């Protein structure tokens, strides 16, 4: 056994270096996220591991920063409510419009397909500062700056491309003879869509919706330019926390957001696999 896998020294060294580099790369990706979680349980208002924490002294660990999140005067509850309201409403708009558009874009008869796709996906790559400044000018002139509605509309435009992408990808694997079969059995186009196509592309729609929600839930720049005190969202609240006085409560919020990200990630991966297995 030993003899059969022995590689020349240079190859072994090369392989070792390659794996070390990869290890360092993965550590770079994940370490910041891993470090922040234990630090959020620090009993002291420091951002570094105290000696007590390293000795695993129970006194050095505490939930006080999580309790601080719950204190109403810190405003995290109100921020969560705003984030959820804006995020859910923007996701509903983005998902309905995005799915409908994807049905058109996936068809080979779609006129100006490339142009339409380029237009619909452009919000994803447009520098967010330009979107924020433009939204401030435009929505102010409509009287929609500093309103929830204005933010919902702006966020919906940011989220829609994600729905378009995931749903067009799912539709690429959709067997269109099923729709003809439904039609031959007497279903109208809408019934055929609702009863046959929609259930089959549902995983794509759902993961697109999750993407759109995450985009809104993490968006800070438009809120910064367009939102007022009444529209403070969680990212907006974190923004001022980081800029003004970074407090350990931020680390507790960050930890909760990491947990949220894990839930979204697992759901999206689960949906992806469901979408891939033939129904």
């Amino acid at each position, binding site marked *: 056994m030993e003899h059969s896998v022995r590689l020349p020294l240079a190859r072994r060294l090369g392989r070792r270096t390659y794996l070390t580099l990869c290890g360092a790369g993965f550590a770079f990706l994940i370490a910041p996220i891993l*470090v922040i979680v234990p630090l959020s349980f620090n009993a002291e208002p420091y951002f570094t591991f105290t000696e007590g924490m390293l000795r695993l002294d129970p006194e050095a660990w505490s939930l006080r920063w999580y309790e601080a999140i719950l204190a109403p005067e810190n405003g995290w509850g109100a921020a969560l409510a705003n984030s959820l309201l804006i995020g859910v409403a923007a996701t509903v708009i983005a998902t309905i419009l995005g799915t409908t558009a994807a049905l058109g874009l996936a068809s080979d008869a779609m006129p100006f397909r490339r142009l339409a796709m380029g237009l619909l996906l452009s919000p994803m790559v447009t520098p967010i500062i330009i979107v924020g400044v433009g939204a401030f000018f435009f929505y102010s002139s409509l009287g929609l700056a500093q309103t929830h509605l204005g933010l919902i509309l702006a966020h919906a435009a940011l989220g829609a491309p994600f729905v378009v992408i995931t749903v067009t990808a799912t539709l690429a694997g959709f067997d269109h003879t099923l729709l003809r079969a439904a039609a031959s059995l007497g279903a109208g186009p809408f019934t055929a869509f609702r009863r046959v196509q929609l259930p089959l592309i549902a995983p794509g729609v759902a993961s697109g919706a999750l993407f759109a929600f995450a985009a809104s839930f993490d968006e800070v720049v438009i809120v910064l330019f367009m939102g007022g005190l009444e529209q403070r969202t969680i990212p907006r609240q974190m923004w001022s926390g980081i800029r003004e006085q970074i407090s350990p409560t931020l680390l507790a919020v960050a930890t909760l957001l990491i947990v949220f990200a894990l839930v979204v990630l697992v759901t999206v991966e689960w949906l992806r696999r469901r979408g891939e297995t033939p129904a």
Partner: protein
Amino acid sequence: MKLASDRTARKLRAGGLALPLVAFVFLSFLAPLGNLLTRSVHEPVVADALPETLRALEGKWSGGLPPEAAFDAIARELPAARETRQIGPTATRVNRRESGMRSVIVKTARRIARFESRAEAGEPWRRLLPEIDEAWERPESWQAIRAAGERFTDRHYLNAVDLDRDASGDVVRQPAERRIYVSLFLRTLAVSLGVTVLCLLIGYPLAHLIANASASTSRMLLLLVLVPFWTSLLVRTTAWIVLLQQQGAVNDLLVWIGLVADDARLSMIYNMTGTFVAMTHVLLPFMVLPLYSVMRSIPKVHMDAAASLGAKPTQAFLRVYWPQSLPGVAAGSLLVFILSIGYYITPALVGGQSGQLISNMIAHHMQTSLNWGLAAALGGVLLLAVLALYLIYDRLVGIDKLRLG
């Protein structure tokens, strides 16, 4: 006949399905961008506040100063502008042409009422205005008003590339101390390029490992890329502040190992290093994921075949693997580059003074200096750059392949 109409019907149906979102994106996304671009060339404030003055300023002036009609008109229009609260914005815009004019205009608008009786008694404003402020004797003041009164202006775009117009209307370079934007654009491009190269250097081996590992390992490793990808940008930025600050974990570790003295802790945040590290971290998944999806489709037997034909590993990599992975390299690099030139949040939070990019300057002009026209013009230049890159991306990779996850 039947076929043709059938085709038209299908076209209409597909177009009709896409139309609602197209219309929505037009209204909620393109209209704001259009508004921004309009503002970069359209500046009606002074023109609306001082219409008659500007009319009187047209044509030739004898003896360097404008005709008396201009003095009379501005004496009427400044107090009116004060009533409608337009005096501040008007004064600010004239002041950008000739510094000092802000206070001249505001003061004149305030004091003019005291001179009304003398004006009614027949004294001309041509003499009275210089009594309020002698700036009204200077041709430069009037030239500044005339220049600021242009409804459409290319000045913001000229300023955005460090140019300006002199008194005679010729395009000239800004004085050396005001040439900041071209170098800032170049710095933004350089940082974006640097971040892209770093992402490629770190991301290429990672994607290769994920693509060539066994199914279960590959899934595990992919998670290590996807977890940061899904984690809030602000969370990741907070994490880097916590890690890199002077009393942070990395410095603590370096001191503990003995690499760094306790009183000489490294400054790794609130400067260019902070911007680089945090941006590379945030954008790395956008490099790894497209690379991975291309590498996954490169058959493993190709490298074995190259080896069996006598190629050394480096040779096999360069001649067989690398060319096949190029589509992924192009897709990932372009995406990272496009996203980095518009980066705002990370530099704003961890960049300090030296790590600011063009987006941060736009925000500065929006929030602090309140020079919205210049902010819009800088945004217009940035937008043009991104649009060009987007078209290149479409050519090389295809917009259909744009995937952020």
